[in-house]
């Protein structure tokens, strides 16, 4: 099928996303939990959330086409907002699974939609990632219980606005955003086990100000480049650099002409790669011979600098390297997105967490640093 003319928006609503939240179940993964949630009288949040987002897109109704899955997986939300969506695929009403999300995302990708808007939580983001990876632009409407991933807009309204701006061509930047995998089973048992699952491509609106004293700040990309210059400028050839996951640290590796394992830890010595996607044991082995520095950037929208997505840099690694050899890098934009909330550490070792807490220097640009608080 080929459409000509109108911009196309793919829409997926995960009907059971967020169902576990209101009843205190820390998530909605697993059929048992979903059943339990319904027994507790939970109401799905995702339909309302999707409607809130689409409400903000009404003004461009004539300019776009929505391609979606049947009934509760998107059609209902689109129709409720007065859209006349093109419905593809088929589902078993009331019994949708993560396979439906993956199939929907794949089909929409093959149809070449301009943007895929999905309502859900971290689990939905992972399904979308599994289905399409970085092949298409996506954006999350926050509707889940856990939203550790950075692919979500701050609220449903902003998701709709950003999608509309993107489809109208007003916004045309994009960036890689983290998809996190926080294991619910462990979460329910009282501890957090978070992995960096991968990166999805999202549209990105650089925040600009009205023609005023300062026309605009450098975008996130320029900031990352400036950070990379600062870090690479100060690198010593005899020092090991343990470089955590993320796009900011990727910029450092690019400056060195090295490729970065986006969701993993790489180790550099003398500007060459000595450890690719290294695990804790490999890092500890490398540490036997040399002094080292750790370079990390806060992960996702939560501000974790240790313990989320970079567990390879374990308490033992941190102790061995020493607090004074930890370099935190973050663009001002990323710091501002925390809205004053501190950076967080959760290494699993309370002593290390305490050691890391307090105020630290953050490299935020070339010759620029920010003093920022770390809590545990």
């Amino acid at each position, binding site marked *: 099928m080929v459409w000509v003319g109108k911009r196309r928006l793919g829409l997926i609503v995960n009907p059971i996303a967020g169902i576990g939240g209101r009843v205190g179940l820390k998530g909605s993964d697993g059929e048992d939990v979903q059943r339990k949630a319904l027994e507790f009288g939970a109401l799905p949040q995702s339909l309302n959330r999707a409607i809130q987002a689409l409400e903000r897109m009404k003004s461009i109704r004539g300019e776009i086409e929505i391609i979606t899955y049947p009934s509760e997986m998107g059609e209902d939300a689109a129709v409720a907002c007065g859209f006349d969506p093109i419905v593809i695929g088929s589902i078993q009403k009331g019994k949708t699974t993560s396979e439906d999300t993956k199939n929907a995302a794949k089909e929409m990708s093959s149809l070449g939609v301009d943007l895929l808007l999905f309502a859900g939580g971290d689990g939905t983001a992972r399904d979308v990632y599994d289905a399409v990876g970085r092949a298409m632009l996506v954006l999350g409407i926050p509707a889940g219980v856990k939203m550790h991933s950075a692919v979500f807009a701050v609220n449903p309204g902003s998701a709709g606005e950003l999608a509309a701006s993107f489809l109208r061509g007003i916004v045309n930047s994009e960036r890689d955003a983290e998809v996190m995998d926080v294991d619910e089973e462990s979460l329910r048992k009282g501890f957090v086990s978070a992995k960096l699952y991968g990166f999805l491509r999202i549209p990105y609106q650089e925040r600009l100000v009205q023609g005023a004293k300062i026309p*605009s700040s450098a975008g996130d990309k320029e900031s990352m480049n400036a950070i990379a210059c600062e870090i690479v400028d100060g690198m010593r050839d005899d020092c090991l650099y343990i470089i955590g996951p993320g796009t900011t640290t990727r910029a450092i590796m690019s400056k060195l002409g090295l490729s970065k394992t986006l969701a993993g830890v790489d180790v550099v010595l003398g500007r060459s790669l000595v450890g690719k996607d290294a695990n804790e044991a490999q890092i500890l082995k490398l540490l036997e011979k040399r002094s080292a520095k750790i370079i990390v950037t806060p992960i996702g929208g939560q501000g974790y600098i240790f313990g989320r997505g970079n567990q390879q840099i374990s308490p033992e690694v941190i102790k061995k390297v020493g607090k004074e050899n930890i370099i935190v890098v973050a663009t001002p934009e990323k710091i501002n997105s925390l809205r004053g909330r501190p950076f967080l550490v959760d290494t699993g070792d309370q002593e290390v967490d305490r050691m890391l807490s307090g105020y630290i220097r953050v490299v935020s640009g070339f010759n620029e640093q920010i003093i920022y608080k770390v809590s545990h």
Partner: protein
Amino acid sequence: MKDITEERYVDGKPKLRRFHQARWDEPIIFELSNEGERGILVPEVEEELKGSVGDVLSRIPGKMLRKKRPELPELSQPRVLRHYVRLSQETLGTDLNIDVGQGTCTMKYSPKVNEQIARMPQVAEIHPLQDEETVQGILEIMYKFEQILKEISGMDRFSLQPGGGSAAIYANASIIRAYHESRGEADQRDEIITTIFSHPSNAACARTAGFKVITLYPNEDGYPDIQALSAAVSERTAGLMITNPEDTGIFNPKIEEFVDIVHEAGGLCAYDQANANGILGITRARDAGFDLCQFNLHKTFSAPHGCGGPAAGAIGVADELGKFLPVPVIEFDGSKYRLNYDRPESIGKIRSFYGVVPVVLKAYAWVMSLGAEGLKEVAETAVLNNNYVLKKLLEVPGVSAPYAKGKRRIEQVRYSWEKLAVDTGVHSEEIGLRAADFGVHYWTSHHPWIVPEPCTIEPTESYSKSELDEYVQIIRNVSDEAYKNPELVKTAPHNSTIHRIDHAPLDDPSQWAVTWRAYRKKVKRDKAGE
């Protein structure tokens, strides 16, 4: 006869005006050019004169001569006049609107009589290269104004040379460097500490002067924790460059502790007083321990701001830093004023000659018209006006004043429309565009937007209660509209010439054309423009 006040006020509050701005869709003056049209016909040079002067062009070096005539627009005088009058009608200038919406800029009334004084031939026709014997009057005024600023700030020495606020801050950063150089510590001390809500020129000028910049973020009270500062200071600290009150309007009550910590680490402390409007006659930089400070004469001291006229900065320093001030300094030996250039440790010149004389004169006239008590009253009135507007605006749905909840502010407030944006999808910038429909200016805030959906309102002392009520009424009305009919606000302006601007090219130099020639080259691909 009708009581006209009933038509203009409801419950003692001004009603919204019916306003519609002139909309001319006026072309750029180059587009109006008509080949051969002239504004002035310069008479031919008489033969006799030609004979005695000779060929003047032959004396100009060949490489400096134009190959062809400058491509200036060709227009008659009345067309030029109409062009600029039309443009002037399409602005919301400070003489036209209740100009409290350009917070941080201290938009106060610039008395017209001071303009007249500055334009008197005795002032306007003097030349900076005249012998100092022949400009004793203006040197006296500058010298006396320095004495006034010393009293206001508590500092020991002043220079009025900087051509603006940032030039003054840059001069102060250079003095900090010169101080550490004089002690052999310049290489080691390469870090300047500032705060995210300080006047952004502090970070920018420190960087320009070659320093690294360390920025502190605020806690919930709106100013940084002492521990944050302690984490920032070290043997590398060159100094602290800070604003107080910051752009949020919040005064850091621990400022003396801040100064002590930086001094203890061996750094100097520079107080950015670009906006001193809320503290004139109330607090003094030197009393809080600062070593340097600066004033923007075009802000606090009433000389016109922005496009209204040139700027001028004044820097003040403690005695031991006096030797680093820019040259020349004005000295008085009891009978004569003179310009002293013989100062080996000076940072040199920050600007040509000895300062922006007309602006200094206007600032001097303003201070002399008020006296010490008057200056204090300026601050008190500005603070009162601001807190009145704060109280009234916080009653408007969708707006808040982040940090220091429930506390008063000094002379301005950085508000947030975050709730309104979440509730309605209307953003701060759009509120400003709608406000223009009612004939008032409204600015969001400096980048970066630490406060989401920000706007900064600074009422100064120049506006009456009824004008402030009118401004608040306009903002309240726009908020109501956002909740009832967001599209109306999102598609604004409807009655004003200000248009929605596509911001994207601001970040893309390939799309900039700041001159007509650049426009022709880039957009028209016109080789003739080269």
